[in-house]
């Protein structure tokens, strides 16, 4: 454990800095500069006018979940429980049932995600063997005034569309 010892030079010990007032005035000139610039032209403020101007969401950003579908409209999910098993927050609750569209044997009859529990880690997306669950909706603001609507079900998950094209998603995500 013999690291290289570097002795840092102590600042603020000479008379010029200990007078303090000069340094205070230097600092105040800096802040006044910002104030005057912004007062004269408030388009120079470094802010996003949020509710009206939305931030740009990158492709790899993990937003609210959605369930994808095949080209013919049948869902990709096969109710393998991989995402539910992998979920560290235990927010996914799947109930499997018999498949009726003939693709495989199983499909979920219930697929609930409790968004209040979810930590948006993306493990479910990585675990999914069918690329059925994705977090590419770009929805970053999940709000509500009651607890119940935060548990979203199968219909809502299927109805939400991705915010990006398949090509963009593959480029950014994989």
């Amino acid at each position: 454990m013999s690291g290289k010892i570097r002795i840092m030079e102590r600042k603020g010990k000479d008379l010029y800095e200990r007078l303090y007032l000069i340094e205070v005035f230097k600092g105040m000139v800096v802040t006044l500069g910002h104030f005057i610039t912004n007062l004269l032209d408030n388009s120079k403020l470094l802010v996003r006018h949020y509710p009206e101007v939305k931030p740009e969401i990158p492709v790899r950003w993990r937003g609210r979940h959605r369930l994808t579908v095949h080209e013919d409209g049948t869902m990709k999910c096969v109710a393998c429980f991989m995402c539910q098993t992998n979920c560290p927050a235990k927010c996914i609750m799947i109930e499997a049932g018999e498949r009726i569209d003939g693709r495989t044997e199983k499909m979920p009859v219930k697929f609930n995600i409790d968004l209040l529990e979810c930590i948006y880690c993306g493990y479910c997306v990585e675990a999914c063997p069918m690329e059925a669950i994705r977090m590419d909706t770009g929805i970053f603001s999940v709000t509500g005034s009651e607890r119940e609507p935060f548990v979203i079900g199968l219909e809502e998950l299927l109805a939400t569309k991705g915010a990006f094209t398949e090509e963009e998603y593959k480029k950014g995500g994989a």
Partner: protein
Amino acid sequence: MSQLDILLLILRVAFAAFVPLCFIAVCVWMERRGAGFIQDRSGPNRANIFGFRAGGLVQNLADAIKLITKEDVIPGHIKQKFYFVLAPVIVFTIALISFAAVPFADALIINGKQYLMQGIPTDLGILWFLALAGFGVYGIILAGWSSHNKYGVLGGLRAAAQVISYEIPMGLAIVSALIVYGTVNLTEIAQFQGQLLFGFIPMWGVILQPIGAIIFIIAAFAETNRTPFDLAEGESELVAGFHVEYSSMKFGMFFMGEYVAMFTSSALIVTLYFGGFQIPWFSTETLVNFARPISVLLMVLMPAFAKLFTFWISKNNKSQYERVDDPRVREANVYIKGIWGLVAALEIVLFIYLITVSGGVADRILVTILQIITFLVKTTLMCFVYVWVRWTLPRFRYDQLQKLGWQTLLPLSLLNIFVTSAIVVALG
């Protein structure tokens, strides 16, 4: 007492009572928008009444409504409920009445009778302020103690120690200022500063007493518990310090008291060191003698300022993003119309004054109004300095605070007294 006496009495008391209260809104607004601009963000600018935001001033109204309608909690563990309620009242009232002795215009002479333009027309002047300023901290100590909370007590103790440390340099700075002015009466002090040094420099306290001014300003910052001396409510270590147990309007009283104290001490700094109500190079007598040319000058200058101001409004009061039929532009147009209407009204008033009543009493009243405006502008600028310092400097550590007070400011102010007295004696 004649009717005029009573009218002037009411006017002066109303001014001394309501102007500090109005300045709470202005100071809070200046603090929040100023902080925003200094940190390159916009500050609260959304609250509106029918789309009128008044540059964010409406936010104060929203905050006030919130504070008034919130639940007023007195925690169950508090034994001394009377003192708990009394504390914010002390802080607020003391701050408010210490403004009463500050003159906001030169003595008004009507029919040979002199009216001091102060809330309380007294000769006590600076002594009134000194007596009350230290008393304001009792409210803070009482709040800390009666909260029965370790953070509250610590905050109160810190406030007490801080005021003891900074009252002394403040008093000594005032002593050296009094040596120069030769009076404790604030109106006379401000009149003294209307003179000219070497015939061209305004004889302001800050020029005669630069070190005294710096010491006084620093001590005034400490006295009002403002950054960099706001250890009493240091939120990083004491949660909220002395007002940690207060909620609703009782907290609001502390909050308002802080801003009234800020306004009062700004007014006092202005009166002692920045010429008070004096317009530089224009003493009261000059103004009265040249009232007509000055009012003509005002009539020319007002539209010019209004033009600049409206240009600034139309440039800045618009949405920074694409918007159909931008409501902010409509809002700005209303403001611009209002400003031009105000300018037109003032022009008419000044015109009527010029052709009918100029000369005599009307001149003196005009000068008084001009001086009140000057005083308020100077005080607003000083309040801005408070805001500016708050958003520039970090808080002192406790030992640094005491060291600065006792080891730097105290010897410096003593030295200042000796040097000042020596010069005053030498110059006779």
